[in-house]
């Protein structure tokens, strides 16, 4: 199945060995990303959304273990041979992180850093590298790109730094860009620009994985959405369907928590009472059940499987057992 997937994750788990024993961060994740599509992976702090991709790319912190399969363009990244992963990482498969200052070297000019990406891999010669640098800076909407090449990271504004980091990721013309909370540290106005930049890259054929907690950002760019809670995917759906009618109670609660400009003012924002389970805790039932407004008795006892309902998949007993289930 899913032969057209560029990136395909099957039964992926990530855990960490800690002094208190093994703590599982991500469990039984399967997902895929097709060429030219944007998949948003949404979840709150600690849901495992970042560890999932760090695991796929072999970038886990010390003590991290990954199991399962992650295939990029047919090549297994998590096999015993690290060759395919090394070949893909940073070349055909690029990442952008939340804090652009960490992605940029403070004492090198933007031009030098951009060129280095392709020079070190022997992909281009110096003259072509400069031309490519200007091209990617333009494609991310950087004002006055020629001048930027001579500047250092500290001379750029926050939004420009994030554009420079995205430009760096685009230097090798990757097929897949994994962006982990790329707009979280930015002002709303700058955030809107960065989303624009990602949307432009997606429209030119780049596959994008956007990891975020912000449903508003998701709506601006995602084609499909996977919602994570306590290390598992609880719902995946095409973005329009998900926003029009969230099926999982957690998705619905997350959407209702976002303060909006266009809804009547209520006395309270919806919010979600309570706390997610502690890291590593593995309740018998659904992890969301203790906070769930529609929890049934069975939700506390058995974990709902992720089941397909047309284009969407949902892991929820209440949805599964509802009369006339289905979108």
């Amino acid at each position: 199945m899913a032969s057209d997937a560029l990136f395909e994750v099957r039964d992926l788990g990530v855990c960490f060995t800690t002094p208190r024993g093994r703590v599982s961060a991500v469990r039984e994740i399967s997902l895929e990303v097709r060429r030219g599509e944007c998949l948003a992976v949404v979840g709150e702090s600690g849901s495992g959304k970042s560890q999932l991709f760090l695991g796929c790319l072999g970038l886990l912190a010390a003590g991290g273990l990954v199991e399962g399969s992650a295939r990029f363009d047919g090549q297994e990244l998590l096999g015993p041979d690290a060759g395919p992963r090394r070949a893909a990482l940073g070349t055909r498969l690029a990442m952008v992180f939340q804090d652009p200052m960490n992605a940029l070297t403070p004492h090198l000019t933007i031009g030098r850093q951009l060129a280095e990406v392709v020079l070190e891999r022997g992909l281009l010669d110096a003259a072509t590298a400069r031309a490519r640098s200007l091209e990617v800076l333009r494609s991310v909407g950087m004002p006055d790109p020629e001048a930027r090449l001579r500047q250092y990271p500290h001379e750029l504004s926050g939004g420009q730094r994030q554009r420079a980091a995205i430009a760096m990721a685009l230097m090798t013309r990757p097929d897949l860009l994994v962006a982990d909370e790329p707009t979280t540290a930015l002002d709303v106005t700058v955030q809107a620009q960065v989303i624009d930049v990602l949307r432009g890259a997606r429209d030119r054929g780049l596959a994008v994985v956007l990891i975020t907690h912000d449903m508003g950002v998701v709506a601006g760019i995602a084609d499909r959405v996977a919602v994570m809670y306590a290390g598992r995917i609880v719902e995946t759906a095409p973005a329009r369907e998900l926003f029009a009618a969230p099926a999982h109670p957690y998705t619905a609660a997350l959407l209702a928590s976002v303060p909006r400009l266009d809804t009547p003012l209520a006395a309270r924002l919806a919010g979600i009472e309570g706390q997610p389970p502690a890291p590593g805790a593995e309740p018998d039932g659904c992890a969301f059940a203790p906070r769930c407004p529609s929890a049934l008795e069975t939700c506390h006892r058995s974990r709902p499987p992720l089941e397909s309902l047309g284009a969407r998949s949902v892991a929820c007993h209440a949805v599964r057992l509802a009369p006339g289930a289905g979108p």
Partner: protein
Amino acid sequence: MSEVATETLLRVRNLTVRFPMPRPGLVGPRPWLTAVDAVDLEIDAGRALGLVGESGCGKSTLARAVLALVSPQAGTIEWRGQPVRRDDAAGLRRMRRELQIVFQDPVGSLDPRMSIGESVAEALEALEGPQDAVATRARVDSMLAEVGLDPALAARYPHELSGGQCQRAAIARALVGRPKLLVCDEAVSALDVSVQAQIVNLLAELRRRRGLALLFISHNLAVVRHLCDDVAVLYRGRVVERASAAAIFAGPSHPYTRALLAAVPDPDPAAHVRAAVPELRAAAAAEAVAVVGCAYQPRCPLADELCRQQVPRLEDVGAGHLTACHHAGVRPAAS
């Protein structure tokens, strides 16, 4: 709110704060950065004023000046009719009991070596002097309960709690002396949305229950809309628009306010299809250091010759809605 003769808690007049910048060369005058530029504002008892703007617009500096943590170069700050001066220790002590602040980073604003119960007790004793241990314990517990924390958590340390719980503890610490005004400097910006909603609800509840006034600093207009009675929009240190929240959200009259509103991410994919906002496209080239005329003019789609020459004054455009724009109320032609 019932109309009992309301007291003005905070009155800021012509407040200007400048910081010295490094000299560009060995000789020549030292350049100054004007972080807050001739700002007027006031907050009545029980009211909530939202102060919005992007990073670097001066909103945190303004809050620090109000708390007398930085000295203004010009202007006055009055707390309940009394001038606030950094060299008046007794006056500051009086004011600080009634005026408290909560910061953005909930974990970083609590002492990592103190349990949250100790942190709250410390704030209480700093304001009211040494207390009887049993009475302190009771006040701390009831304060924690009021912000939605189980008093059993009093013995926990910040690193053992979630970001939302730490922010509740920081709010408890700020409120334990029963202040009249709480300054929230991006107090919900670092939180997950579901937790953000909890904290916004908590602040709304505390307003109702305690008659607490808020100076709520945020870059997220949607949050401000849910919590505030009045809004002031700050751009490069100046108030460019000020009005009731209802008026601002129903009809923003400054082009910058409109750009901020357009940038709030809407959790509805359909909304993004029509969201090709010309004002945001213009925002890219916003880095000019010194701007002649209106500070927003380089980003503004409405800017003309007048805007490039003259700084617009903050003027009433109807029913107390103040706007500093030569083209207040003119909307760019919709595409």
